[in-house]
């Protein structure tokens, strides 16, 4: 498309100047989030591969998306899994602060690698243009993509002390003070006093992560854990601690989390 | 006529009064040992004591010379025998009852657990002290000057000691016993490795035959227990006492214990013994044929006293009594605190892993892990043969009775220790880290491994080193010292590796706590 515009640039240019008035009404977000338009490709792929769970309106109410999928965790918990509802624009795995939309890269990454330990499979065999096209189509489900201001991506730089014994100790204190145990339990097994009452944004019961149950869905590297604390998991009961904890405090919490998961001695 | 009656009653009363004296005089044929002559007679005319000489050389009585090791070995044997007989009152050698009778001895019989502990620790202590005694005899050159054959008798006694300990280990019929029995039976079968490599097993299965003979069948079971019991309480003890009798008789006939040519009495000797009353002959001018001594192969010089000797009564006897008490006290103290082990009832379905022979065989078991034949038959055979031949390959007669034959011997021994230890440890570390032929070339023929394995390599090194020492020092004695020192070093190191550093599946573990949890 870009090539075509360039070729016909001279002719179009004047027309564009005239239609500037009409174009001015288009919000900036569209430019900020990339100018690739979804078109038919994205829609087709969505309908072939995604609609069956995520629904034709992107609300997660597809044929099998709405509470049919059951997952038994390593710890023995059985969860009912719902497909993501795209209409609210609330996504869990972002690199932007809480309340923000994810970046394009975030979305493409999820499409590519799937979400481990869930029913969202990877799509590694899809060519990159198709992934991008689907991503564009998904964005059409929520008006927020047009309305919201863009957010800055959070920088992640892991300091050297992560995983050390003193960092783990500090993290343990923070875990206690910040009341993580209220949901995640004292031993991190997800059976804290508030854990039974948690509901996600869609009113469905959601259980806090059981640290013993294996890999985190976003990935279990220290950077991934840190980013979860910082961005929060929007749509679930996991808040962002960007404002309530300093950066190094969050890294100490990372050390303690890794310890609970058994990834650090 | 009434006189005889009075004398009769009086003499009866007198006899009653002096009954102790007269009993003592009848008991000791030569009367109470109050003079040197009567002390000499007390030794000479006594059924048990006359195996020892009337006079003892002062050097023999110096504790630093022999450290009493031979005596300790003997006393441990006696203690073990007596405690063994006590245990026989209750022990029953059938596989249904053996374990339960041992339990009952430990729990119910008064003094039972102490007796069992004494028997076990005196028996195992005997191995340690017999080895120390062998080392002492070797390092003082006491296998020379006519004592060559007695050394060989001693080697035979060493083998019997190992055998009697091993057969005793198998009697409680617990997991330790049963699997030790299985291992030993398989060691006995190890010639099969050679006959298999040569392809002659179907005609000449010496390994299989010996194993069946030992076990009384194809598998360890009730026949094996009966045979092992027979060995332990009858055959080995009889052999032991026969050989021991010969061993003591030869000590006497070979001239008592060795002493250095340069022996001079010291001041410190005064607290060890009391010299004879008269100097220059204990004999009166009348010759008596009853007292004879042979010292140094010369005919008895009747009116010349043997120099630097003291009367055995009481000096030698007091020394022996002291050693006995030390030995017995040591055994009782050890037995008071530490119980003889007893594991679960023997269970053929649950092998001990690792299944280990008793500690004194673990050096051998380590060698076994390299080659069954070499570890089980070859190397022990070579070792025993080598030990037995020492007095015949080293016939130098100098410096007998001197520890290490002097300064040169000390440095030869030290060098052998310092050279042998890293070589052996290095060899073991190599095998543990990298494995051996079969790990690198799975199809290598077994015969090659039998011939070239760490155990053989070590023996070859030992022999080459001692030959080098012989060349360098020009003395077979020095070579013998080097060889024997290396033998001791390897015994200690291999036993340590087998005991502490080998875990399940004979794998290498730095400590027990690292063994995988069962």
């Amino acid at each position: 498309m870009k090539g075509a515009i360039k070729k016909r640039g001279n002719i179009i240019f004047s027309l564009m100047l005239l239609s500037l008035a009409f174009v001015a009404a288009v919000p900036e977000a569209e430019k900020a989030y990339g100018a690739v338009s979804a078109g038919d490709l994205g829609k087709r792929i969505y309908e072939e591969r995604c609609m069956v769970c995520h629904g034709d309106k992107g609300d997660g109410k597809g044929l099998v998306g709405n509470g049919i999928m059951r997952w038994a965790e390593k710890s023995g918990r059985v969860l009912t899994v719902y497909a993501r509802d795209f209409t609210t624009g609330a996504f869990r795995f972002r690199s932007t602060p809480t309340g923000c939309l994810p970046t394009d890269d975030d979305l493409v990454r999820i499409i590519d690698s799937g979400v481990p330990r869930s029913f969202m499979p990877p799509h590694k065999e899809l060519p990159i243009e198709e992934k991008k096209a689907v991503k564009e189509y998904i964005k059409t489900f929520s008006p927020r993509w047009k309305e919201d201001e863009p957010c800055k991506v959070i920088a992640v730089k892991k300091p050297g002390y992560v995983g050390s014994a003193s960092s783990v100790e500090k993290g343990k204190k923070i875990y206690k003070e910040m009341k993580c145990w209220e949901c995640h339990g004292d031993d991190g097994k997800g059976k804290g006093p508030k854990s039974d009452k948690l509901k996600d944004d869609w009113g469905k019961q959601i259980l806090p992560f059981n640290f013993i149950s294996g890999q985190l869905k976003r990935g279990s590297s220290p950077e991934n854990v840190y980013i979860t604390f910082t961005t929060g998991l929007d749509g679930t009961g996991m808040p962002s601690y960007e404002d309530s904890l300093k950066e190094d405090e969050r890294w100490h919490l990372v050390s303690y989390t890794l310890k609970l998961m058994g990834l650090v001695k | 006529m009434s006189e005889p009656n009075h004398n009769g009653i009086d003499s009866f009363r007198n006899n009653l009064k002096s009954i102790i004296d007269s009993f003592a005089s009848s008991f000791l044929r030569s009367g109470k040992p109050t003079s040197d002559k009567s002390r000499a007679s007390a030794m000479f005319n006594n059924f048990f004591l006359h195996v020892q000489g009337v006079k003892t050389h002062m050097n023999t009585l110096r504790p630093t010379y022999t450290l009493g090791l031979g005596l300790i070995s003997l006393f441990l044997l006696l203690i073990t025998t007596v405690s063994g007989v006590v245990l026989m009152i209750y022990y029953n050698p059938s596989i249904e009852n053996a374990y339960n009778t041992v339990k009952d001895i430990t729990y119910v019989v008064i003094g039972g657990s102490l007796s069992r502990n004494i028997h076990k620790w005196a028996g195992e202590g005997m191995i340690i002290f017999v080895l120390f005694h062998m080392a002492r005899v070797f390092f003082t050159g006491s296998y020379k000057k006519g004592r060559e054959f007695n050394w060989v008798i001693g080697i035979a006694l060493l083998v019997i000691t190992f055998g009697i300990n091993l057969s005793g280990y198998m009697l409680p019929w617990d997991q330790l016993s049963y699997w030790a029995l299985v291992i030993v039976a398989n060691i006995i079968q190890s010639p099969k490795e050679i006959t298999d490599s040569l392809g002659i097993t179907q005609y000449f299965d010496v390994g299989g035959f010996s194993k069946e003979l030992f076990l009384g069948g194809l598998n360890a079971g009730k026949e094996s227990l009966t045979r092992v019991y027979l060995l332990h309480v009858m055959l080995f003890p009889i052999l032991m006492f026969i050989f021991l009798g010969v061993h003591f008789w030869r000590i006497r006939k070979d001239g008592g214990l060795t002493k250095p040519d340069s022996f001079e009495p010291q001041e410190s000797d005064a607290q060890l013994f009391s010299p004879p009353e008269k100097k220059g002959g204990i004999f009166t001018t009348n010759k008596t044929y009853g007292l004879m001594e042979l010292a140094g192969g010369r005919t008895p010089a009747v009116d010349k006293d043997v120099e630097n000797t003291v009367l055995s009564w009481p000096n030698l006897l007091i020394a022996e009594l002291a050693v006995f008490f030390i030995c017995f006290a040591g055994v009782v103290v050890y037995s008071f605190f530490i119980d003889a082990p007893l594991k679960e009832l023997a269970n053929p379905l649950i092998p001990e892993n690792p299944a280990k022979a008793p500690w004194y065989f673990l050096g051998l078991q380590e060698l076994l892990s390299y080659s069954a034949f070499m570890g089980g038959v070859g190397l022990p055979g070579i070792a025993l043969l080598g030990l037995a031949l020492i007095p015949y390959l080293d016939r130098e007669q100098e410096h007998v009775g001197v520890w290490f034959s002097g300064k040169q011997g000390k440095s030869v021994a030290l060098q052998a220790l310092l050279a042998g230890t890293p070589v052996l440890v290095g060899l073991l570390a190599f095998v543990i880290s990298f494995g051996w032929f079969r790990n690198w070339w799975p199809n290598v023929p077994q015969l090659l491994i039998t011939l070239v394995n760490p155990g053989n390599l070590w023996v070859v090194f030992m022999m080459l080193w001692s030959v080098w020492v012989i060349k360098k020092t020009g003395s077979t004695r020095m070579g013998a010292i080097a060889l024997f020192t290396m033998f001791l070093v390897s015994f200690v190191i291999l036993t340590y590796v087998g005991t502490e550093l080998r875990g399940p599946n004979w794998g290498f573990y730095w400590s027990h706590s690292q063994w995988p949890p069962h």
Partner: protein
Amino acid sequence: MRNRFYIMTLFIAGVVLLAFTLFAAYKEMNPEWKAYQKEYKELLVKGTRDEATKKKARELETNIQQLYLGGLKRIDRCTSCHVGIENPLMANAKVPYRQHSGDYLKKHPMSSFGCTVCHLGQGRATNKKEAHGLAHDTHWDYPVIPLKYIQSACVQCHDLDMLKQKGADKIVKGEQLLRENGCMGCHKLNNIGGVLGKALDIIGSQPRIYFPMGFVVGEKTPYSWIKQHFDDPRAIVPVSEMKVKVTEAEADLLTTYVASLRAEEMPKSYRRILETQKDGKTSEDGEALYKKYCIACHEKGKDSLFDEIFMHTIPAIVNPAFLKVVTNDYLKKVVEEGRAGTQMTAWKASAAGLSGQAIDNIVDYLTSKRPKEKAVPFNIVALKGDLKKGEELYKVRCALCHGANGKGELGINLRNPVVQGADITFLAMTVRDGREGTPMPSFGKNGVGLSDQDIVDTVSYVKTISKKK
């Protein structure tokens, strides 16, 4: 002094020897049980009012007490410390002096039964540590059983019906729990059952070394192992795939029953088991069999479940959509042959050991929930499958769940010989109608919207997928 050195050493050694001989003598004269018997005497003397009993009590001899039980081939010396076990005066005393609870000793007199036949432990020992045999270094494989599991002993001689009437509810409940929670789906008992777990037949008699005690909390005995294994299998055996969801109380009941599965038979004169009970060939109905063997993994069977430990989906076998399209023969085949490569065992007589009749009963039970309406027939003969198109469709629609080569993770493994050998009509109807209530959607007109031709193309391709790498 002459011979001073030796006389001194002799003297010192002699003193040491004498001292330790005296210590040893003292130890021998004061074994543990003597103290207990002494205190028992004092309790008796204090506790009684009348002089005659007091006199008798004072005159009691302190001795090892033992019961020689020839028929049971054992000797029990427990009464050396538990002296008052038969004395009604000791009804309220503290252990070990207390009288035995209940009236068990009336029907099971000590002189014939002893103690260890029910309570286990090392009867021959005469000190507490080794008699109870709980510690690892006592080297005794059958430690004293915790009282909450004591009913596991009754089954050696009595049958469950009798025990039910007499109020031995724990063992009866335990047996019921085992039978109705599908345990035999993975564990063999009496030669019938799955092979994913170890057989349970003589587990109550296994020596301690049989149980890997590395992760057991508290006393490392087989009973703690079994109980903690029920609480959380993977805490005790990290690689375990065991599916169990029981409360703590139920875990205790199950432990009681499992501990009762022992090897030795009691001598005939002791046994009270009715002969008719021993015949285990009573034909059980399908529902009971389903509870015995299937329920642990398949639960109610209506919904499918992806199990993270199995790394497989457990299919919904009582699913109405499934039952509509599947034939009884196919179901029977799947049950008999199992699904190699998954946790689904082969249940035929030569494998897990269920008889043909038993499997028929199970299939009847499963299909009893079959909906009355029949599935819409699929006329597959009329349409020819285009393999190339089928491959395209498969890649887009099916590979997501069933894997690019059919191996499947979220979806079932299509390469499995049983699936490959299924009737093509069955496969086509499955794709068309889906499995309602599971992640397999309907791909036909009522669902995703594929045409019959599309479905035939796809299914034909699926039938060839095991040939692909």
